């Protein structure tokens, strides 16, 4: 069975600021990042859907110690965002001072504001992209 939405396709779309997922024709659940089966009912009858990129911060951290090769990025804020369509995605928060964020972030509404490409390193299989989010209002 062919993979409906591959990482490469997801990543290429994200580079154009289109956040993609899969909507299940059986139960209506949206799964993103994409998988072979629906994240809710494990069905395979899904079609590609574009997500609005809006959601709520579920949790975060302001990270001061980056991995090898990414030292220049620190400090940065990593988020888990629950999108309005349901899925949780990982991204970064921009437009804030990473040294000044706290628990008040949790529950705040965010919108996707572009993307950033990790060019890859000697351990990875090429570049990959994450969504960037900004606080609403």
């Amino acid at each position, binding site marked *: 069975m062919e993979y409906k939405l591959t*990482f490469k396709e997801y*990543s290429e779309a994200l580079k154009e600021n289109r956040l993609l997922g899969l909507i299940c024709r059986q139960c209506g659940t949206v799964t993103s*990042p994409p*998988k072979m089966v629906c*994240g809710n009912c494990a069905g395979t009858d899904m079609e590609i859907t574009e997500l609005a990129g809006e959601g709520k911060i*579920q*949790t*975060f*951290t*302001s*990270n*001061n*110690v*980056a*991995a*090898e*090769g*990414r*030292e220049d*990025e*620190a400090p*940065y804020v*990593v*988020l*888990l965002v*629950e999108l309005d369509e349901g*899925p*949780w*995605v*990982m*991204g*970064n928060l921009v437009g804030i001072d990473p040294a000044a*964020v*706290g*628990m008040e972030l*949790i*529950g705040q509404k965010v919108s996707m504001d572009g993307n*950033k*490409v*990790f060019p890859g*390193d000697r*351990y*990875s299989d090429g570049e*990959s*992209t*994450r969504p960037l989010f900004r606080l609403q209002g």
Partner: protein
Amino acid sequence: MRKVAVVGIGETKFGPAQDKTSVELFAEAAMEAMTGSNLKPKDMQALFLGNVLGDFSEGQGMVQAFAAENIGCYNIPANRYEGACASASMAVRDAFMWIASGFYDVVLAGGVERAATMGTAMATRTFAMFSDSHYEYPAGITFPALFAMLAHLYAAKYGIPLEKLKEQMATVSVQSYRYGMFNPKGHLRKEVDVAAVLNSFMVSTPLQLHDCCPFSDGAAALVLTTEEIARKLTDKPVFITGVGQASSGPLVSQRDYLPRLKAREISAQRAYEMAGLKPEDIDFCELHDCFSIASLIAAEGLGFFDYGTSGEAWMKGEAAIGGKIAINPSGGLKSKGHPIGATGAGQVYEVTKQLRGEVEPERMVEGARIGMTDTLGGDGGTLVNIILQRGW
């Protein structure tokens, strides 16, 4: 199913970068385990070895085959297990199953890692491989960052003010250091108080340096056999009476179940069911405290404390020796250290020593009859639990 006993245990010191190869480290632990069991290398029918990052730390793949030959276990089947930090526990569980099923009578199981040798930058990079490399690593996730996010989520979900949670987490680390100070195999043997934890370097908010376990080098090994053989070898056999293992997908797939880790709850339940025991029957537990918050999440997932209350339990001494359940009398990953591919075998080593009454008096759980291990790989991707009981 046959009963399975631990009859030999061995462990190197867990510590900073060591001038020994993985094969050498494991060989030392393995010889100690075999000698202690009164068995010989020729008696081992298989080697199950946890090793996660040997390919990166020393350019060595397939280390299990070289290790088997190095210690005189010629030509036996040798399997490597990779389930991130739970690797050695997977190896022990498989050894248990193969002996219980009747296929093998004697298996050498264990693990080895040289995490400290990699240094912080490379270890941080390679440990991040146990998050989703395509959908999560791009955002700069690291292991401290991941557990830091779980800490914030824990505070929000259970309505605990962050300052209070931080004090609870600091208490977890302080307790681990207090016991670990007396563990001769330990990596960080020093006294640390709450103020020192709260003043340490901020790694990934809200986790500070003393909330995090170290990167360690080390190895551990166990000889497992049948009850019949065990009774001939020792008058103190320690039986594995329950095992469980479960998996989960990436963090984002675990979503609103977080900060609870479903794989742990399923794995622990299987172990309890097999042993015919409940959480309140367990005298002590070596659980996966890679970060202070991880201890709180683990103690709740294992059923020792109610959700959202384990920090309070630590503060009241309920997780200390003499409390409701003694957690990590070895010093845990925090103080004893975390050579990831060896950690689970190191936990079984500690539980076995406790049950035999062979640990230092300052960290002895008097009269302990039932101990448990809890080993977590990745962000809940692999969970293994093992229950051990005195056989005399």
